[in-house]
C-alpha cells in the first residue's frame, strides 16, 4: 500500500505535474479511491467467504446451535463433531474413505500427466496424416456433455464386470480422455522453440528420446498445473463414483459424506459439517499451496474450478 502511494507521488513529481497543493489534492483523491476499493472488496470478500467460514465454525458447535444461529464464533466449541466423524459410517472407517479418495486422485494425476503429455506431443510435434482431423475431434470432445457417453460406458463396464472397481474411473485418465489437459499441454508445447527438436534430431535422437529428455522437462509448468487440477477434480468428483462404486467400503469421501447425510438424522448438522470440512480440506490446502498455479491455469486456459 505505502509503496504504491510513494510510487504514484513519485510519478507525479517526475512528470513535473502541478504545484504542491494540486499534487496533495491528487494524492488525497488516490487515497480515497484506494480506501473505497478496499472497503468494497472486503465487503465482497465477507459475502463470498461467509458460507465457508460458517461451515468451519459450525463444525465446532453442538448440532442444536447450528441452523438458527447467525454468529460465527461457537459458544461451547468442541471437537465432538470431529470425533463423531472420524468414527466412520456403518462400520466402515473414515480412513477407508480417505484412502479411496486419495488413491483415486493420485492415480488420476499419474494417468493424466502421462497420457496427456504423450498425446500432446503427437499433436504438437509430429507431422502425420490425420493429425488435423483427430485434433478437431479432440477439441470437440471439450464441449461434449458427459451424459452422451455415460450410459453405453456404464453398460460396457457392467458387462466387463468392472462395477465396484476403480477401472471405470481411471481408464479415461490413462487414455488421455481429459481433452482440457491435452489442449493445455498442446498450447504449452507450441510455445517451445522447434530448434530444440531439430538439434536433438541432429544428434540422432528419435521421437521417444526427444519427448523424454527435451520436451518433458520443459513441460513442467503445464504438468504441474494439470496435476493440481486433476487431483482436485478427482477428489471432488461425485457423479463418477456415484455410478460405479456401490459398496460402502469402496466409497470416496464425497460418497461417504452423502451417506452420512442420509443416515444421520437431518438435525445432526454438527457431524455433517465436520465431515464436510474433512472432505473439502485437501482441496483448500491445495488452493493455499498452489493458488498462483491455479489462477494462472484459469487465466490462460480457461480451466474451470
Amino acid at each position, binding site marked *: 500500500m505505502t509503496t504504491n502511494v510513494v510510487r504514484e507521488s513519485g510519478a507525479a513529481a517526475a512528470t513535473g505535474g502541478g504545484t504542491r497543493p494540486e499534487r496533495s489534492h491528487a494524492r488525497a483523491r488516490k487515497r480515497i479511491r484506494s480506501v473505497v476499493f478496499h472497503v468494497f472488496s472486503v465487503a465482497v470478500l465477507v459475502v463470498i467467504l461467509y458460507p465457508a467460514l460458517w461451515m468451519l465454525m459450525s463444525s465446532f458447535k453442538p448440532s442444536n446451535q447450528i441452523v438458527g444461529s447467525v454468529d460465527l464464533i461457537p459458544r461451547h466449541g468442541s471437537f465432538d463433531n470431529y470425533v463423531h466423524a472420524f468414527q466412520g459410517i456403518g462400520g466402515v472407517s473414515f480412513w477407508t474413505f480417505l484412502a479411496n479418495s486419495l488413491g483415486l486422485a493420485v492415480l488420476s494425476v499419474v494417468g493424466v500427466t502421462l497420457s496427456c503429455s504423450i498425446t500432446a506431443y503427437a499433436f504438437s510435434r509430429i507431422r502425420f496424416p490425420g493429425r488435423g482431423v483427430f485434433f478437431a475431434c479432440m477439441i470437440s470432445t471439450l464441449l461434449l456433455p458427459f*451424459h452422451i457417453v455415460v450410459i453405453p460406458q*456404464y453398460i460396457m463396464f457392467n458387462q466387463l464386470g468392472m462395477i465396484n472397481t476403480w477401472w471405470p474411473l481411471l481408464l479415461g485418465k490413462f487414455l488421455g480422455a481429459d481433452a482440457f489437459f491435452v489442449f493445455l499441454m498442446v498450447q504449452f508445447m507450441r510455445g517451445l522453440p522447434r530448434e530444440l527438436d531439430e538439434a536433438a534430431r541432429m544428434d540422432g535422437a528419435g521421437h521417444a528420446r526427444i519427448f523424454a529428455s527435451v520436451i518433458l522437462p520443459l513441460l513442467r509448468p503445464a504438468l504441474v498445473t494439470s496435476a493440481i487440477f486433476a487431483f482436485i477434480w478427482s477428489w471432488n468428483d461425485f457423479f463418477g463414483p456415484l455410478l460405479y462404486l456401490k459398496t460402502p467400503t469402496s466409497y470416496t469421501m464425497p460418497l461417504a459424506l452423502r451417506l452420512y447425510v442420509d443416515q444421520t438424522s437431518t438435525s445432526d*448438522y454438527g457431524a455433517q459439517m465436520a465431515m464436510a470440512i474433512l472432505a473439502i480440506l485437501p482441496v483448500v490446502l491445495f488452493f493455499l499451496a498452489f493458488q498462483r498455479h491455479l489462477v494462472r491455469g484459469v487465466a490462460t486456459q480457461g480451466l474451470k474450478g
Partner: protein
Amino acid sequence: MMTAQLASGAQHGAPRRRTTWRRRRDIGAGYAFLSPWLIGFFVLTAGPMVASLVLSFTDYDLFSAPSPVGFANYTRLFTDSNYLQAVKVTLLYVVFGAPLKLIVALAVAVLLNHARGGSGFYRSAFYLPSLIGGSVSVAIVWKAMFTDKSIVANIGSFFGGPPAESGGWVGNPSMTLPMLILLTVWQFGAPMIIFLAGLKQVPTELLESASVDGAGPVRRFTRITLPMLSPVLFFNLLLELIHSFQVFNSAFIISNGTGGPVRSTLFYTLYLYQRGFSDFQMGYASAMAWVLLVVIGLVTLMLFRTSNAWVHYGGDEK
C-alpha cells in the same frame, strides 16, 4: 517467424531419400504417440456416442436384450410431464444463472483491474468458491444455510419472503431455483479471472486518449473496454452455458436425489440419471442425452453465428 520458415525451407532442401525415410518414421511415431488417446477416443467417446444413438431407438433395461421401438422414446419425451418440467427448470437455471454469474464476474473483474495494490489477494480469495463450489460439502452447507429457520431463511422472511419456519428456501418450491442460482453466482471467480486476463490486454493508451477526448468512464467502458473484451465474453458465455445445462451435484444433494420439493430441482441431468440408473430405462435416458447434445450443439452454433455481430477480434479493427 521468418527465421523459422527459412529453417524449415532449408529442411526441405535435404536429400529426398532422407526426407521420405523421416516422413515414414514420423507417421509411425505419430500414431504410436497418439495410440492411447486413439483407443480412448474410440472406446470411451466415439463408440459410446454411436451406441447411445442406437440405444435411443430401443427399450433396454440392462438385463434383457434391447428391443427396437423406433422413435417412441423421442415422442414420449413430449408427453412426459416430468421431462417437460426438467426442461423448464434447466432452461430457467441456464437463462438466469449464467448471465447473472458473468455480470458479477465482469463487475468484480473491472473493479480489481483498477486497483493496483492487493488485487492479487482478492483475486485468489474470490476464486476459492469456484474450486469447491461443485463439491458435495458445499451443497450440504448450502442446504444447511437455506433450510428451516436458517440464516438466509430468516433474512429472507425479514424482507417479506416466506416465513422462516416453513422449511426455509430448501422446502419451498418457488425458492429452490433462486437458491441454486445463488450457488452458481457464488462461483463467479473462474470467469472473473478470465475477464481479468482479458482486461489486461486492453491498451491503456487507448483509454487515456479517449479520456483526453472527453469520454467519461461509462462511455470508455461501453465503447472501448467491452468491444475489446468481447472475445473473452464470448468464451466465458459459451463455457458457462454448456456447464449450466449439465448441473447435477448440488441439485442431487439438496433434494436427496429426488428433484424435490414438488420437482422444483428436477434438472435435466438429474432426471436423466433417475431414468437411466434408478429405473434402468437406458433407451429412454439415451434419447434424453441425445436431445441434450443437440440442444447444446444448437446453442453453440447460434453463439458462433451471432458472434460476427458482437465479437470483435483484434484483426477486425484494421
